[in-house]
C-alpha cells in the first residue's frame, strides 16, 4: 500500500531518530521556558534542557500523569496564549473534574496528518466514502476521524452515534466503503442490519472498518470480519495526545506510531524502567510536535508492548501491540472512560446513600451496560415507593451527568454489599471481550 508521506514513513531508523531528537530538544527547551508546570517539574527532578544530549536521555525527564491535567484544570498546563488556540476538546476526568485539551492550528494539522497517514495505510483514499460513526462534539473521536478522512480526500458521512437503522440506510444509499466506530457498535450495526434483512457483504460496499476507543480482542476482530466480510483495523489514541491518531496497516500486525509525531516507551509500571521489544508494560508517550498542550513522557496507563522492526508494509516506525489492559482501574464503557473513583465522587453528593457501591459492567447484545448498586441509608428509607423510585432516578441522573454515560441503578438495603478489608473490589466486569 502506498504511503501518504513516504519520505517520513519509510525513513531509515537512524534518520528518524535524528529527527525525533531534534523535535524533542526543541520541545523541551520550549517547555522549560514557557510552561511553569514543566519548568518546576524539571527543576525538582534536577534536569536542565542542556542535559538532553541524545534521544536516550529522554529517561532523565520527569513523567506527566493524568492527575496533572486534573490538578491544573482547566488550562494551567497550556503553553502560549488563548489567541493561539483554535479548539478545545473535553473528556471526563477521574474525580468529576474533566480533562481539557487545547489545540493550535498546527496541532489540528498534525492530528489530521497522523489520521490521514493511518487511513491511507489501511488503503483508504479519494475513492472512498467514509462514515464517521464516532460521537461528534467534545469527544475527540468524531472530529478526529473527520478531519483525517477529509485530508486523504475521501468523502465523509458525519453520521455520529445512534439511529442505527438510519446509519445502515446511509451506508447503502451513499455507497459507503468504510466506517469508523467502536468495535461494539460495529457488532451492533451488524446485528441490526441482519434484522433489517441487509447483508453487509452483498448489499453494501462497506469493506473497511476502523475500530477503537474501547478495548477489544483478536477474537472479536475475527467475529466482526466473519459476520460482515469487512476488514477490521485497530485504531489507537487518547484525548491527552490529541485524540485517535494511529492505526494498524493492511498487515494487521501492530499499530504504527508515527515517530516524527510521537516517541513511545514501554515501562515496567512498578519501577519505571524501560522494557525491551515484545515485553508487556505501561505505554508512555512523548508528543514531539504538540504546541498548546505538549505531553512529555505521559503515563497513558494502557498496557502494550512494542516492536521496532520494519513492518512488512515497508514502514519503519515503531509498532505497538493491541492494548491488553490498564495499569489502573479505568473502565471503558461505550467508548467513554470511567473511573470507579468518579462514581464514588458522584455518589458522595447524594445524602440518602451509604458509602458502599458496586459497579457491574456487562455487554447486552453488542452494547456495554453499566449497573451501579448503591446502598440506601436507613434514615433515608421512605415507605413510599414513589420516593424510592425518584431517589433511584436521581442517582441515575447524577451518574449520567458526571460520567457522560448512562448507568442503571439498583437500590439495595443497608449493609448488603460485600465489605472488603484492604483494597475494595468494586467492579465486576462480565464482558467477554
Amino acid at each position, binding site marked *: 500500500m502506498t504511503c501518504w508521506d513516504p519520505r517520513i514513513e519509510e525513513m531509515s531508523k537512524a534518520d528518524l531518530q535524528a529527527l525525533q531528537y531534534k523535535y524533542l530538544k526543541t520541545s523541551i527547551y520550549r517547555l522549560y521556558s514557557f510552561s511553569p508546570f514543566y519548568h518546576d517539574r524539571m527543576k525538582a527532578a534536577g534536569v536542565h534542557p542542556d542535559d538532553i544530549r541524545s534521544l536516550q536521555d529522554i529517561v532523565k525527564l520527569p513523567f506527566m500523569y493524568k492527575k496533572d491535567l486534573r490538578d491544573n484544570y482547566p488550562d494551567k498546563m497550556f503553553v502560549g496564549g488563548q489567541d493561539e488556540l483554535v479548539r478545545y476538546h473535553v473528556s471526563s476526568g477521574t474525580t468529576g473534574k474533566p480533562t481539557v485539551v487545547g489545540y493550535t492550528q498546527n496541532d489540528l494539522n498534525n492530528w489530521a496528518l497522523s489520521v490521514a497517514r493511518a487511513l491511507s495505510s489501511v488503503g483508504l483514499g479519494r475513492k472512498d466514502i467514509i462514515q464517521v460513526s464516532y460521537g461528534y462534539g467534545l469527544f475527540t473521536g468524531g472530529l478526529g476521524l473527520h478531519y483525517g478522512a477529509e485530508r486523504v480526500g475521501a468523502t465523509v458521512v458525519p453520521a455520529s452515534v445512534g439511529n442505527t437503522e438510519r446509519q445502515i440506510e446511509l451506508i447503502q444509499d451513499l455507497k459507503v466503503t468504510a466506517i469508523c466506530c467502536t468495535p461494539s457498535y460495529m457488532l451492533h450495526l451488524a446485528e441490526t442490519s441482519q434484522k433489517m434483512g441487509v447483508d453487509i457483504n452483498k448489499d453494501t460496499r462497506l469493506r473497511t472498518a476502523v475500530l477503537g476507543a474501547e478495548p477489544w480482542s483478536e477474537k472479536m476482530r475475527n467475529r466482526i470480519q466473519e459476520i460482515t466480510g469487512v476488514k477490521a483495523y485497530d485504531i489507537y489514541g487518547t484525548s491527552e495526545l490529541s485524540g485517535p491518531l494511529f492505526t494498524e496497516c493492511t498487515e494487521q500486525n501492530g499499530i504504527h506510531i508515527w515517530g516524527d509525531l510521537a516517541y513511545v516507551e514501554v515501562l515496567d509500571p512498578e519501577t519505571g524502567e524501560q522494557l525491551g521489544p515484545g515485553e508487556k508494560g505501561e505505554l508512555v508517550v512523548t508528543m514531539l510536535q504538540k504546541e498548546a498542550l505538549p505531553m512529555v513522557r505521559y503515563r497513558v496507563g494502557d498496557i502494550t508492548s512494542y516492536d521496532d522492526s520494519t513492518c512488512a508494509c515497508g514502514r519503519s516506525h515503531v509498532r505497538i501491540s493491541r492494548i491488553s489492559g490498564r495499569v489502573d482501574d479505568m473502565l471503558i464503557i461505550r467508548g467513554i472512560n470511567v473511573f470507579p473513583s468518579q462514581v464514588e465522587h458522584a455518589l458522595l453528593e447524594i445524602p440518602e446513600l451509604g458509602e458502599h457501591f458496586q459497579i457491574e459492567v456487562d455487554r447486552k447484545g453488542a452494547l456495554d451496560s453499566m449497573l451501579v448498586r448503591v446502598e*440506601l441509608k*436507613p434514615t433515608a*428509607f*421512605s*415507605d413510599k415507593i414513589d420516593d*424510592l423510585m425518584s431517589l433511584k432516578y436521581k442517582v441515575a441522573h447524577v451518574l449520567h451527568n458526571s460520567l457522560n454515560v448512562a448507568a442503571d441503578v*439498583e437500590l*439495595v*438495603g443497608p*449493609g448488603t454489599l460485600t465489605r472488603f478489608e484492604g483494597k475494595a473490589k468494586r467492579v465486576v466486569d462480565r464482558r467477554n471481550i
Partner: protein
Amino acid sequence: MSYTIKQISIFAENKPGRLAAIADALEEEKINIYAFSIAEASGFGVIRALVSDPAKAHRKLTDLGYAVSFTDVIGVKMRDEPGGLKDISRIMGEANINIEYAYAYSGKKEAVMVVRVDQVDDAIRALQAHGGRLLEEKELS
C-alpha cells in the same frame, strides 16, 4: 381514643429468601404478624406489616441492619360479605380521601382494610362522620 395504627415498613431487595429472613427475625422475638403486604418496584420492594409489638420489631430489624420505618395507617372495618368494600370505599371517595395504598385482611371479628392516606386525621374524621367504623390498635391483638 386513637385510631391511628403504627405500621412497620421494611426495605427489601427483590431476592429469594428476603421475606423468610425478616419473618424469621420477628419469630425469634415472638412478634406476631397480623397483616402484611409486599409492594414491588423495579429491583426492590417494601414490606409493610401490622405486628403485635411494632417498637420491638423496629429495634430488632434495625439491629440486623434493615432500613425500617413507621407509618401511621388506619384500619377500616368492612362487612365480610358482598358490597363490604364498596360501602367504605364509597365513603372515602365522596369525602375526597385519596388512598396511597391499601391492603386487606380478615380480622378476628370482621374484615379490615388497612389504608395509608395523605391526611390521616382528616380521613378519620370524614370516615366517622359518614358511618365508617375504625379499628383501634388494641383490637389487633
